[in-house]
């Protein structure tokens, strides 16, 4: 039984690898090109790390030499100088260098490197300076349902369905059955191993809901990032920043008198040192802690994606020196093991983020014994 499930996992992993390989091999870079050279691979990987405005699964070249893209468009929602503007991402026709101009609501829009720019009035196309920066267009506030937002919505929906069904099971029976039996130990794990020991027996219940949400949110999104669907939600700075700021707000708002006392007027040290300590402590509490949270998650997940994709790309980049078979074998072997490690990292980063959040909250609500 164990052996069977192990070999099943192996097959699934190999399938994932092959699927990613296919996606990479047949994806387009600009419009009609296959990814083959080192520069193209680098650009493709960096492109993948970014958010996207349409859900692109893979592309292929049809018999007539025409590039076909498989995926679906996502709605673009912009807050422009003329108010709210919405249209579908398919109107850009997969263009990402600002050559396709979309006219909506009396304004012209172009998409450059996954960002949407609003053209200045009168301009009919984007002009670039030497550093490839648009000179006659500016970024708009982009509230689109991007690929990442789509991922967030998907995971939110999955989480809600899974855990509310677990919650409903308890109305009828004491011990959940089916999938709930898998979820329950995870919930207990977060409560007993993360929330309880770090926050303390008295106060952990108030924060457990947040910690559970964040843990499963990050974990599922991390895992989703390892599938060929190509999500990179927890590798988006904006997403990790939002998560870190939630933690910051929670521990700042719930911090008790002792906590602020220790930050602003540290007892037990000479008076002259206290203001200096206060500056350091304030910076630590309000900047360093959330910054470490957001950068750690972002960097780990982005780096994981870059490493996995780079190893898959060995197939193309080392094709000449190792022959096609050798490069493919090396690529498969290395990316297989790195993917295994990434599965661990997916859990680890979710655990670390939740754990540190719990720790920070615990420090803020801790009751000190007065000596």
């Amino acid at each position, binding site marked *: 039984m164990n052996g069977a499930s192990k070999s099943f996992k192996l097959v699934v992993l190999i399938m994932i690898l092959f699927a990613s390989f296919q996606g990479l091999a047949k994806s387009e870079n600009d419009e009609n090109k296959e990814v083959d050279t080192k520069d193209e691979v680098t650009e493709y990987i960096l492109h993948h790390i*970014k*958010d996207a405005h349409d859900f692109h699964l893979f592309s292929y070249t049809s018999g007539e030499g025409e590039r076909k893209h498989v995926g679906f468009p996502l709605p673009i929602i912009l*807050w422009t100088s003329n108010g709210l503007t919405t249209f579908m991402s398919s109107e850009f026709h997969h263009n990402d260098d600002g050559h396709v101009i979309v006219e909506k609501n009396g304004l012209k829009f172009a998409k450059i490197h996954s*960002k949407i720019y609003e053209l200045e009035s009168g301009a009919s196309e984007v002009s670039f300076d030497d550093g490839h920066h648009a000179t006659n267009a500016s970024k708009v*506030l*982009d*509230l*689109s*349902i*991007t690929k*990442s*937002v789509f991922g*967030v*919505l998907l995971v*939110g929906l999955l*989480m*809600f369905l899974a*855990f*509310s069904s*677990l*919650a*409903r099971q*308890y*109305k009828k029976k*004491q011990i959940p059955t089916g999938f709930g039996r898998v979820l*329950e130990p995870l*919930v*207990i794990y977060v*409560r007993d191993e993360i929330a309880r020991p770090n926050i303390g027996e008295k106060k952990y*219940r108030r924060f*457990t*809901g*947040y910690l*559970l*949400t964040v843990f499963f*949110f990050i974990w599922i999104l991390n895992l989703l990032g390892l599938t060929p669907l190509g999500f990179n939600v927890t590798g*988006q*700075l*904006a*997403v990790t*920043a*939002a*998560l870190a*700021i*939630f933690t910051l707000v929670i521990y700042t708002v719930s911090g008790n008198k002792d906590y602020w006392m220790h930050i602003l007027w540290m007892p037990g040290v000479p008076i002259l040192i206290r203001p200096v300590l206060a500056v350091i402590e304030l910076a630590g509490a309000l900047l360093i802690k959330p910054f470490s949270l957001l950068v750690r998650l972002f960097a780990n997940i982005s780096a994981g994606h870059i490493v996995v994709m780079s190893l898959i790309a060995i197939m193309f980049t080392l094709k000449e020196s190792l022959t096609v078979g050798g490069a493919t074998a090396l690529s498969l072997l290395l990316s297989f093991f790195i993917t295994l490690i990434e599965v661990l990292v997916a859990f680890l980063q979710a655990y670390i983020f939740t754990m540190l959040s719990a720790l920070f909250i615990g420090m803020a609500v801790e009751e000190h014994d007065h000596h």
Partner: protein
Amino acid sequence: METLLNDFSPGLFIVQTILLLGLIFLMVKFAWKPILNSLNERESGIQDALEAAENAKKEMQNLQADNDKLLKEARAEREAMLKEAREIKDKMISDSKEQAKVEADKMIQQAQAVIEGEKKAAVADIKNQVANLSVEIAEKVIKEQLSNKDQQLKLVDDMLGDIKLN
């Protein structure tokens, strides 16, 4: 750093914040609260059941101890009763022995008295008979003397032989 800042999308940040807020709210209301409440209820239920079992065990032990104590008491009581009975028996036996001895002594005394009385009566009787015989002998001797000397002697001998027979 510039690329990082350039990659930071304020729009995504806003959308993510709103979605996360909504998700936390929904999850807390519809999932975590009921789940954690049920888990707590179940855990306290298990705790209570364990405590009840522990109490039952203790009660059982107490009962056992009580039983043992009762048994011990009963045994001691039985011992005591047996001992008392034995004492009573012994006492009865010794009492009746004494009584019997007294009775026997009394009877012996009575018998001795009767025997003494009989003896005295018999001695008195013998004395009377000897006196009578002596008188008769004397009478016959006197009568015989009166006729024949030999015959008188023979008579005395006969008489004496008669007395022996008596």
